């Protein structure tokens, strides 16, 4: 073990101690009107020290441990396959996607209400991830504050419904457009920044929006959120037991069937499905259009793209705006599904999850992103006992992923590294 490694490991262990002692070891307790600081149980301190030791050992022997990890057998059957030809691939992808959509159409009629509800959430994440995929996967702009636009969409609907009684269908385009507009306004000054700087600034934006929502109590209700957001209607038919809005009829009465709470859940699911499909199709269209190629070109080589006359700002801004637009779309659906929203739904963790979906999916490939959205949303639900460790499992999955398949599940293009022959 090199001395350098040792010092690095020691440093990491000390950092672990410095960070975890105040966070885990000290508790604030409210005693009457006073707040007092109490220490945690001895076992917590023991655990902290053990953690620091673990960090030390790992960092000290990091190279050999990572080497071992790399030697683990790769369970991914696709890992060593030669890449498919592009045109064949696109066709296959289309078929699989169609298959998934058809399956998804019948799905809600055979499973439980809870599953349908979860599937709606998956679809919302699919929309979000498809949108972020444009920004990160295609245009190569690392946006860590994507959830801000999701929040704009959701709050637009919530506020408009509260103050003007707007319906879901009216709010959908307004929420998306407003989110897109926010993206454009926020994007304009920051898109000059590159790489890490852009990531940090967008992270800041995400937090600013959340903090704004949290503190502008007169408008947004602050941490209490906004409730009573209406559900979507079907041609003026409501899905509740009783009709809330004047002029509307109720679904079960119109069709002369018994009221069932499931109708509403399934209807919401189907709307989310249709919107997710629309999102996928529109973005697919963009990818084939010149603007889609411009995103890729700018990501691959900024100087080359600019020297061909592409305007850096316009190209980046278009990706940012389109991404934000679909986040707003998803946000409106989310608000309608929940009926109640608060800033808590729009924390940084959400941005991180959406980004993880895009990265896991393989940066750019739509099918990959959709599969990853399903996996990331459903797996934690399946392992509910472990739900507290969700993030831990997530982190471990990401690490394994980077060891085995750094290009994601289904990368859009395989990256070939070959030496250029000299003639």
């Amino acid at each position, binding site marked *: 073990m090199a001395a350098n490694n040792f010092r690095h490991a020691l440093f990491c262990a000390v950092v672990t101690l410095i960070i975890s002692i105040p966070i885990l070891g000290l508790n604030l307790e409210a005693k009457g009107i006073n707040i007092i600081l109490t220490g945690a149980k001895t076992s917590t301190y023991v655990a902290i020290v053990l953690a620091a030791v673990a960090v030390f050992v790992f960092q000290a022997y990091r190279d050999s441990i990572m080497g071992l990890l790399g030697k683990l057998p790769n369970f991914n059957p696709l890992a060593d396959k030669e890449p498919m030809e592009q045109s064949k691939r696109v066709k296959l992808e289309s078929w699989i996607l169609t298959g998934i959509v058809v399956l998804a159409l019948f799905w809600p009629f055979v499973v439980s209400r809870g599953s349908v509800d979860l599937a709606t959430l998956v679809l919302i994440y699919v929309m979000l991830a498809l949108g972020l995929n444009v920004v990160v996967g295609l245009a190569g702009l690392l946006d860590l504050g994507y959830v801000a636009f999701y929040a704009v969409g959701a709050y637009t609907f919530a506020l408009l419904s509260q103050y003007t009684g707007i319906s879901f269908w009216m709010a959908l385009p307004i929420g998306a457009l407003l989110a897109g507009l926010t993206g454009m306004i926020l994007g304009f000054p920051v898109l000059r920044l590159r790489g890490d700087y852009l990531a940090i600034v967008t992270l800041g934006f995400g937090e600013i929006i959340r903090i704004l929502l949290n503190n502008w109590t007169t408008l947004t209700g602050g941490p209490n959120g906004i409730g009573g957001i209406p559900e979507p209607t079907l041609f003026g038919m409501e899905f509740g037991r009783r009709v809330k809005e004047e002029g509307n009829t109720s679904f079960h009465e119109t069709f002369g069937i018994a009221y069932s709470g499931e109708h509403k859940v399934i209807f919401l699911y189907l709307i989310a499905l249709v919107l997710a499909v629309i999102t996928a199709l529109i973005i697919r269209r963009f990818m084939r259009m010149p603007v889609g190629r411009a995103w*890729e070109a700018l990501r*691959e*080589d900024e*100087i*080359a793209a*600019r*020297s*061909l*006359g592409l305007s850096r700002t316009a190209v980046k801004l278009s990706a940012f705006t389109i991404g934000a637009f679909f986040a707003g779309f998803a946000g409106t659906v989310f608000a309608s599904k929940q009926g109640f929203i608060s800033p808590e739904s729009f924390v940084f963790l959400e941005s991180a999850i959406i980004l993880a979906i895009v990265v896991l999916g393989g940066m750019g490939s739509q099918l990959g992103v959709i599969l990853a959205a399903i996996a990331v949303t459903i797996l934690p639900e399946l392992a509910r006992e472990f739900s507290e460790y969700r993030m831990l499992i997530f982190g471990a999955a990401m690490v394994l992923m980077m060891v085995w398949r750094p290009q994601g599940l289904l990368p859009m293009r395989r990256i070939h590294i070959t030496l250029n022959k000299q*003639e």
Partner: protein
Amino acid sequence: MSMLVLEDVHTHYGKIEALHGVSVEVNKGEIVSLIGANGAGKTTLLMTVCGMPQASSGRVVLEGRDITHEPTSQIMRSGLAIVPEGRRIFSGLTVEENLHMGGFFNTKSEIRKSQAHVYELFPRLKEREHQRAGTMSGGEQQMLAIGRALMSRPNMIILDEPSLGLAPLVIKQIFEIIGHLREEGITVFLVEQNAHQALHLADRGYVLETGKIRLHDTGKNLLENPDVQNAYLGG
């Protein structure tokens, strides 16, 4: 009739001045070569014409239009194309996709025409049409970079060291193509380390030393100039 004029151009990278008042003129239909040692500022000069970075003082005039303060996107859409230093092809895209990027602001039928023309100049590219550009040989990549620049049907093309790192046979091919471009009426502004071949081909040449033009004459005279021979032609 001048195609491109630089008048007393100064260019800065932050506080450092890389060009100290450069004046260059390229006439329509000419091949003009710019030679100079590493770090003399050749790339800087070419990129200043493209507006990346912009000149901090002086004037850049393209076909009678003052482009000194125009953004790159506007300059590069007005009949000017560049083959940048180090080729900078889009290695993840196929050869054909690369060419299409070159014709980004042209109509479909124009693109089809220019593509056929590029394949005529470089039959090798046609063979590799669907190959990912990053997997091609250095020579092929350079051909692609030139082909991509030609896609926008420019009146003037700027080339920054197109022979860099290539074998003699490929270099010969590239220089032949450059000569051919002049016959098509395209004005060429060429930067080269390969001073001998560059001056041989050029109508006129400039010698740049640490951000200043030291000499300027016809290609032939520069080849015979003892100072140039000593410094750039290996004595």
